């Protein structure tokens, strides 16, 4: 099973800032030539701090923003949304889930409509079919048909993230971009959502691009890891390579900053404190 779902070749993205009466326009290069390949059914984690370009890359992969240069291949087909119109067939292949489940759902839309809308826009399914599919999906993500007629404010953060996942899966995509899907959630809810994502990946043979700054989550879910720093890829390899033998100094800084909760490091910290006191 070495079917390549997603490939990036030297992807670059520039943003133009300013350019008013008062100042000259500046160009910010948010993503500086990123290349990677991702096989079907695998998870690629993109790690980095805020402002490193990881979400920009995610938006390019999801066909929301065009790349400035470089090639993006989805299922072996090159696509550049600056030139070509995005067909509903392409839309169906890639879906995204955002970080903040409170912001990504329309407060005036019932859950049933939230789930039916991707089908309404991209397929020719009838209302009855859409309804049945939405009900089915609710059950799959661990909610129930009774939630169909409720509004987003009636749900907790974890449940809303389940709804966002359900919406993304309505079109049976092959690629799912997850932009910090659990960083707004509590520890135990985070565990539930991560379990759900793992189950769904098995069930639908999904390919994930998992954007995160939390290394403990990445270590749990990823097959391959890409570390970005100021728009550049500073480290790219399988999970075990990156975690057991980080090469770049930034990756090492990241590891050092991650809180350690094993008994040994607590002992070390308390001992250090005693010396200082």
């Amino acid at each position, binding site marked *: 099973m070495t079917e390549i779902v997603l490939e990036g070749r030297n992807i670059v993205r520039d943003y133009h800032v300013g350019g008013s009466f008062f100042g000259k326009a500046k160009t910010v290069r948010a993503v500086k030539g990123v290349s990677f390949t991702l096989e079907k059914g695998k998870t690629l984690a993109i790690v980095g*701090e*805020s402002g490193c370009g990881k979400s920009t890359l995610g938006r390019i992969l999801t066909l929301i923003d065009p790349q400035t240069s470089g090639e993006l291949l989805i299922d072996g087909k090159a696509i550049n949304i600056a030139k070509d119109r995005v067909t509903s067939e392409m839309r169906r292949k890639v879906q995204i889930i955002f970080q903040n489940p409170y912001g990504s759902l329309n407060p005036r839309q019932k859950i049933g409509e939230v789930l039916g809308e991707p089908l309404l826009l991209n397929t020719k399914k009838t209302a009855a079919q859409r309804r049945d599919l939405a009900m089915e999906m609710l059950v799959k993500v661990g909610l129930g048909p009774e939630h169909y007629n409720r509004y987003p404010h009636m749900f907790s*953060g974890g449940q809303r993230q389940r709804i966002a996942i359900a919406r993304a899966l309505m079109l049976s995509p092959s690629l799912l971009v997850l932009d910090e899907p659990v960083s707004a959630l*509590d*520890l*135990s*809810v*985070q*565990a*539930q959502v*991560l*379990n759900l994502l*793992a189950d769904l990946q098995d069930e639908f043979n999904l390919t994930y691009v998992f954007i995160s*700054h*939390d*290394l*403990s*989550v990445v*270590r*749990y*879910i990823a097959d391959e890891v890409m570390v970005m720093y100021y728009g550049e890829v500073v480290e790219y390899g399988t999970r075990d390579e990156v975690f057991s033998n980080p090469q770049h100094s930034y990756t090492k*800084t*990241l590891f*050092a*900053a*991650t*809180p*350690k*909760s*094993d*008994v040994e*490091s*607590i*002992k070390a*910290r*308390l001992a250090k*404190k005693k010396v*200082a*006191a």
Partner: protein
Amino acid sequence: MALLEIKNLSVGFDTSTGQFMAVQGIDLSVDAREVLAIVGESGSGKSVAMLAVMGLLPKSATVTADSMTFDGHDMLKMTTKRKREIVGRDVAMIFQEPMASLNPCFTVGFQLEEVLRFHMKMDAKTRRRRAIELLQQVGIPTPEERLSSYPHQMSGGQCQRVMIAIAIACNPKLLIADEPTTALDVTIQKQILDLLVSLQAKYGMGLIMITHDMGVVAETADRVIVQYKGRKMEEADVLSLFESPKSPYTRALLSALPENATGDRLSTVADFMKNEAAISGAPS
């Protein structure tokens, strides 16, 4: 004698469906020079308990306690005026969202000096000097220039540093940090936690860390209280909590950490409580 001592604290909120008890009979004490962490999920009442101490709850809340003493003062019988003198000076609090807790309409310098004017009655010159000194202490480069910056001109990490500067401005005896790093990146989180702990040690403050992150607890706390649905589940020093957690809920929280995952699935608190509720009679 403990710096802050609370016995049997309960907080209820009036709702349309009757009273909702957010905190149910919590005992808590912090000594000077001690870092106490309160851990729990959202809805466990960990923030509400501290807001009750600060007197920052809305009118719909009813706070009852057998006793609540801070530094020898009885907080329950205190007049509102007296409480306002203490809160902000001797007890200070830092919140989760640094961007939201600073006022976007005023400069950082104004907001910092406001505390000094209100509580310390300093004149303009001394205030300015003290404000620069405080920004230096929390590690903000070029503090003189930063005083005239607005919050939106600074990053999240820098805003949190300013919040810390405001909190320690009057040399408080107790600092309450409510999820101080949840909105920040790991590298910045590390810097802020190190800053808080070093300030705590330097000034001998009591520090209460409210968090849901076991990693933060492991990195900062001396003693830990685990709270669940408004009740205290466990209280232990940090090492014994991680080495041999007593309550099933603590064990559940620890096993939900991705780094403690065994096999393909993370155990969730829900599974855990189901299995153990019958045995230990824990509230569900």
